[in-house]
């Protein structure tokens, strides 16, 4: 069997980036959440906010650490699997990634230690400032990465000289046509992911009858954030749809599952299709009449363009793009339903007592991660066969390495990433199962071995002789 290095390089990057994106999404969402929680604590001095802060800070710290480690690999993969891409596009992409390190990583690295270990070592205002800086750092990091990726989607501000990209206008490279819409789309996705994660864990505590005050407050705040963010996301998502329809029509044609140059009028909205790329048709379609015209053209009788408008050799694979997009969109519909019902239940004063709703919240805990990954699959598979839209094909960007070598590194990444994700899940579940009362006190347990040992001894004494030792 011949191993295709192009396919393996793409699978490898898809695999590593799929695992990686979980953690920055969580970090951005949780950092913003922690910033608000600490602000509320400073304002109200309510100890529940501090309890919430300490509990989620532990999970944030783990996610942040794994995110950094899994992200470093991606930079190396440019050289490992896509050396020609790095050679050709390096002058435009490299500085964005370098600036991410200089601006975001330095900011985060400078304040993360104070945030994690300084709760009892620095003043509350300085600690809050550190939390704000870490939250800002995660968002600056996302800005640079989104700028680089958006440039690959909608390249601008460059010219070609001797087969390499030469930047003619840096502002247009960074501020390319899709960046200003894709950035809020991604940041909102992260906020929503964090909100549903937090609300889901709180709902689980309420279902189990554990940590009731903590659970109520987290469900309430999580849903509060989610309500605003989901509404904004639907609005921004539609703006992005229009923008990508203009710049990358084939991506959106594939995302909607239409083949013919013009659909029927009014156009149905496809929910399930079995696409036949070879014969350029769908073998099976499950659709809702008229809804396609309404949602995609914002009119009752509008026609939707299909993938046959794009030459065959420039078409993305419809199945991947369609199901990526529809997974994201269906999860978004479910999220909107949840936040709308939460408002209704809040008015009815039944937010914490409606068990089916709490169960739904628990089920929706990973929904943000699923939608984010599905969205990135849409963005990346929909751009194919280009790695830089209209400039460089993916097939021409691959490193000249044999398929066997690519396969061996892929296996190594699968093993290492499986270890990372397993360790993260084990520790995260353990922390969640223990609950906020047992959240680690970073301020005491860190920095000083004597402090850590003293805490262990005191905990032991308290367990053996209740009433003593504290």
């Amino acid at each position, binding site marked *: 069997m011949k191993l295709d290095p192009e396919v393996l390089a793409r699978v490898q990057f898809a695999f590593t980036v799929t695992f990686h994106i979980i953690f920055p999404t969580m970090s951005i969402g949780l950092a913003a959440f922690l910033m608000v929680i600490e602000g509320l604590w400073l304002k109200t001095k309510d100890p529940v906010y501090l309890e919430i802060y300490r509990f989620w800070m532990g999970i944030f710290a783990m996610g942040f650490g794994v995110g950094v480690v899994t992200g470093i690999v991606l930079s190396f993969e440019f050289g490992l699997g896509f050396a020609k891409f790095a050679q050709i596009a390096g002058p435009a992409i490299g500085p964005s990634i370098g600036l991410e390190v200089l601006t975001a990583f330095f900011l985060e690295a400078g304040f993360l230690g104070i945030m994690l270990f300084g709760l009892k070592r620095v003043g509350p205002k300085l600690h809050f400032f550190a939390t704000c800086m870490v939250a800002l750092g995660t968002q600056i990091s996302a800005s640079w990465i989104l700028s680089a990726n958006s440039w690959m989607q909608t390249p601008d501000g460059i010219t070609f000289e001797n087969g390499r990209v030469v930047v003619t206008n840096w502002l247009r490279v960074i501020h390319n046509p899709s960046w200003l819409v894709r950035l809020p789309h991604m940041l909102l996705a992260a906020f929503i992911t964090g909100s549903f994660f937090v609300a889901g864990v709180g709902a689980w505590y309420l*279902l189990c009858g554990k940590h*009731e005050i903590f659970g109520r407050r987290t469900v309430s705040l999580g849903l509060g954030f989610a309500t605003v963010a989901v509404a904004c996301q639907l609005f921004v998502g539609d703006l992005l749809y229009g923008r990508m329809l203009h710049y990358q029509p084939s991506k959106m044609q594939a995302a909607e599952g239409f083949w013919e140059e013009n659909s029927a009028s009014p156009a149905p909205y496809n929910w399930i299709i079995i696409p036949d790329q070879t014969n350029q048709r769908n073998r099976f379609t499950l659709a809702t009449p008229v809804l396609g015209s309404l*949602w995609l053209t914002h009119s009752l009788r509008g026609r939707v363009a299909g993938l046959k408008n794009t030459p065959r050799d420039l078409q993305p694979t419809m199945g991947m793009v369609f199901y990526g997009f529809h997974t994201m969109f269906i999860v978004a519909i479910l999220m909107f339903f949840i936040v709308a019902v939460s408002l209704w239940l*809040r008015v*009815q004063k039944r*937010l*914490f*007592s409606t068990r089916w709703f709490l169960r739904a919240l628990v089920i929706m805990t990973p929904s943000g991660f699923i939608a984010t990954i599905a969205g990135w699959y849409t963005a990346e598979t929909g751009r194919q066969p280009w790695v830089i839209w209209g400039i460089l094909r993916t097939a021409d960007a691959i490193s000249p390495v044999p398929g066997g070598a690519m396969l061996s590194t892929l296996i190594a990444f699968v093993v290492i990433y499986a270890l990372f994700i397993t360790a993260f899940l084990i520790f995260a579940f353990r922390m969640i199962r223990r609950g906020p009362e047992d959240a680690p006190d970073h301020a005491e347990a860190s920095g000083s071995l004597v402090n850590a040992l003293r805490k262990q001894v005191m905990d032991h004494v308290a367990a053996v002789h209740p009433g003593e030792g504290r």
Partner: protein
Amino acid sequence: MAEEMHWGTGQGWNGCLTPDNCFVALRTDCRFTRPSGQMLFGAPDLLGEAQMSAAPFSARRAIGVVLTTLLGFVFFNALLGVFGLSAAIIALLLFISLAVVIFYARSLDRTQS
């Protein structure tokens, strides 16, 4: 209050093996009780779920549900830009304002604990 509560299949967690058994909690109707058997979580007098469930079906409630569903559907479509960009911006501002008003008006510690 935590010391007053008992965990276990017999007197606290009806049908649940341990308090940490998360998936059991999703499948079964776990109740948190005092040793006397008085329910704390999910109790009708505290949270009102049983009262709501037992309440007779009323036309007023049905109309309320239908109108709320329609309102949600209209908001969803407006946010998606079906009625144009201006309507989408207005819907977004309205939805967020509505959410903020409800959030503050129904401050949970005051109304539900």
